[in-house]
């Protein structure tokens, strides 16, 4: 089969799974919906591997296969196919997306086991993966936008999956609204590009762009900035990141899916996909790199002080995506995408382990309520620690190679801007290592909490049914989490994917070890062959220096966390007491939510109130009331004639006849 046919199979499989589950939710017994969904994604993964093999059998310059199902929109000057593009970049993305998504599906089978919305959950999950695969495989900007919007809709459905939870539905709406801002950016970018190049498919746009636009042409920079708006909204970059921590209201595997495999990586993919445009508009690329760096720094500082376990991981995602954006904006595509892959591994792993811990404390997410789980849940502990090591870029883990690759490339770009960004990146890496092990030490080490002791005895603690954010009581019917919690140490279908991911988080870096193997970079080369920066690689000594510095920074962060949380417990509280303002600033996430509230939400609400009270009641209802008043008055007049008295009718008749007779008499006279 050709690579194109495999591409269609990749899309068809989760779509079929979604439709089957959505239609058959009534008759699917037990956990079969979950297995069916997982099977659909496995089918996708197998097809991705097929596409990979088919692509590799082609000569290098032909490794960009387009396949069209039918003409989508065809009119004068516009020619859009429902077409996909299978090239090394998209195959790489579908492999990561479907592979990690499959493991998350398997994990969900047990994790969501007691939820009353079981089949609905898996239908949504399949839809989510389908949307992401569509986004990645799309062969033109129109289909890309479709996939882009689908992903936003799917994330809304899944974040507010527990729809009777007020906080969850609000988080879903927030995610959707911010994502729509990104959609609008993408659509405007498409318009700008189309007006310049007259094409909508990637190949056409990239081919026409160098002739249509000068270097740093105003229109092109605007288009690239709009692409960045789309990428930032989806990838949770400043200032459109606020939806991502709130998205933690969804079930934990959903967080893993959003953060690791799908959705947030879309922005990185978009920049990598449209790299010919960014190389033509380096000004926009600089903006991307600066925002990425600012985000990675901002999110790392916030992650230092958060107490919600999932939110810490969420901010770490924002931070890590910042690295990727920095990487692809600095034209280090291989490095950025390499980090995308390793991040998918260790972030999915961290979320799965976090889900297991959250299950152990009955749905609570605060690390204040956790501690000493290392004997109660040894498997979860080890896997979480591996994920944290990889996140902290501990030497020889997967995250180590990818993160340092990005920073080494950034340093290598020269000038004043990029080395500065790289230094900020190293500072961020230090903080990353610190907060990663803050989680490990706070959750798994220290004094065991009562739940840990119950687990050690072999029982399962029962969580109270309440919203962990607000404490509102809940039941366990559909729309709320199910009655039972599941932990990885006791569920084989949770254990297996975590084991695999832990393995990948440890050795997944083998595809891109600097100086030793560059499998990934070599594989991606055909996509970026035209890039002027493909040859600009750091020298060997620079690579080695980068690795050493990165490793040392990571280890230093871990040691500091060990010092503060294990050796001298309580010392962090003293630090908080000494710097209450800084702590509050970080805890409130740099007041971004408050800022948006003042700048956007409240004016919008005020505007709405003016509209409702002034325009709606004054103008609209006045007009409506006036019209109906006139009709009513006329009707009243007509009604009085209908007195019901026979004599009155007769009188009217006589008067009418007399009047007519009089008229004719006068006329004839």
């Amino acid at each position: 089969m050709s690579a194109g046919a495999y591409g269609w199979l990749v899309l068809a499989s989760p779509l079929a799974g979604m439709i089957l589950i959505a239609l058959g939710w009534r008759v699917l017994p037990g956990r079969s919906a979950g297995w069916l969904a997982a099977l659909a994604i496995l089918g996708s993964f197998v097809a991705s591997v097929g596409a990979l093999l088919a692509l590799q059998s082609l000569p290098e310059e032909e490794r960009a296969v387009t396949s069209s199902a039918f003409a989508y929109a065809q009119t004068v000057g516009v020619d859009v196919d429902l077409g996909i593009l299978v090239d090394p970049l998209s195959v790489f993305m579908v492999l990561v997306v479907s592979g990690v998504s499959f493991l998350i599906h398997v994990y969900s089978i047990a994790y969501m086991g007691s939820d009353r919305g079981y089949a609905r959950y898996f239908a949504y999950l399949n839809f989510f993966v389908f949307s992401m695969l569509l986004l990645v495989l799309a062969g033109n900007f129109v289909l890309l936008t479709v996939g882009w919007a689908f992903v936003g809709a799917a994330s809304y459905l899944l974040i507010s999956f527990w729809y009777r939870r007020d906080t969850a539905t609000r988080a879903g709406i927030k995610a959707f609204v911010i994502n729509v801002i990104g959609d609008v950016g993408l659509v405007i970018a498409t318009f700008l590009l189309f007006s310049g190049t007259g094409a909508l498919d990637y190949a056409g746009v990239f081919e026409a762009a160098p002739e249509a636009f000068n270097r740093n042409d105003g229109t092109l920079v605007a288009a690239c900035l709009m692409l960045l708006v789309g990428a930032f909204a989806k990838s949770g970059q400043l200032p459109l990141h606020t939806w991502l921590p709130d998205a933690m209201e969804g079930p934990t595997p959903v967080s893993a899916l959003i953060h690791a495999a799908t959705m947030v990586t879309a922005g990185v993919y978009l920049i990598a996909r449209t790299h010919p445009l960014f190389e033509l508009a380096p000004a926009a690329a600089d903006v991307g790199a600066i925002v990425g760096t600012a985000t990675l720094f901002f999110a790392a500082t916030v992650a230092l002080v958060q107490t919600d376990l999932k939110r810490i991981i969420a901010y770490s995602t924002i931070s890590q995506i910042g690295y990727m954006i920095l990487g692809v904006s600095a034209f280090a595509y291989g490095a950025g995408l390499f980090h995308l892959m390793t991040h998918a591994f260790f972030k999915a792993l961290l979320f799965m382990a976090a889900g297991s811990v959250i299950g152990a404390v009955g749905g609570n997410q605060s690390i204040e309520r956790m501690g000493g789980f290392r004997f109660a849940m040894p498997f979860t502990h080890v896997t979480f620690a591996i994920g944290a090591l990889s996140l902290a870029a501990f030497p020889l883990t997967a995250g180590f190679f990818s993160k340092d690759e990005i920073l080494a490339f950034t340093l290598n770009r020269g000038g004043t801007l990029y080395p500065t960004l790289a230094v900020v990146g190293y500072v961020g890496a230090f903080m990353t290592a610190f907060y990663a092990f803050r989680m490990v030490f706070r959750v798994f080490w220290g004094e065991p909490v009562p739940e840990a002791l119950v687990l050690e005895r072999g029982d399962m603690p029962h969580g109270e049914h309440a919203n962990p954010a607000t404490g509102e009581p809940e039941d366990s019917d559909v729309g709320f989490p199910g009655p039972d919690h599941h932990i990885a140490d006791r569920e084989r279908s949770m254990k297996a994917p975590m084991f695999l991911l832990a393995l990948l988080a440890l050795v997944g870096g083998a595809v891109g070890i600097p100086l030793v193997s560059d499998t990934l970079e070599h594989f991606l080369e055909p996509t970026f062959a035209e890039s002027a920066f493909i040859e600009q690689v750091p020298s060997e000594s620079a690579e080695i220096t980068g690795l050493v510095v990165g490793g040392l920074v990571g280890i230093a962060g871990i040691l500091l966390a060990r010092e503060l949380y294990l050796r001298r417990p309580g010392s962090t509280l003293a630090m908080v007491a000494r710097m209450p303002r800084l702590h509050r600033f970080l805890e409130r996430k740099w007041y971004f939510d408050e800022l948006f509230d003042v700048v956007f939400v409240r004016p919008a609400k005020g505007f709405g109130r003016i509209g409702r009270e002034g325009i709606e009641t004054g103008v609209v209802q006045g007009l409506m009331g006036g019209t109906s008043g006139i009709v009513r008055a006329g009707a009243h007049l007509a009604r009085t004639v209908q007195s019901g008295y026979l004599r009155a009718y007769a009188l009217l008749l006589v008067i009418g006849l007399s009047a007519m007779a009089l008229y004719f008499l006068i006329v004839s006279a």
Partner: protein
Amino acid sequence: MSPGWFVALSAVIFCIGVGGVLMRRNPLVVLLCLELMLNGGNLALISFARMHGTGDGQIFALIVMVVAACEVVVGLGLIVAMYRRRLAIDVDSMSELRG
């Protein structure tokens, strides 16, 4: 005699009928007054027929009488129906069609 007298008489009879219809409340009297109006009209028809020396007006008067007979049948039927349902024999009390 000139037709003027006949026509004047017919006008007087017609006006008496109109006045009765408009002013009386007893349906029986209203019906009688209607007959007066019709017969006033008939008188005018016959006068003019005689003036012109043709039979057209007379034929028309005969048709009016037939119509009047039909009308009386319907009207009396209504009055009997009112009586049998023990309603007040008063046209003003039958004002259910008031708008």
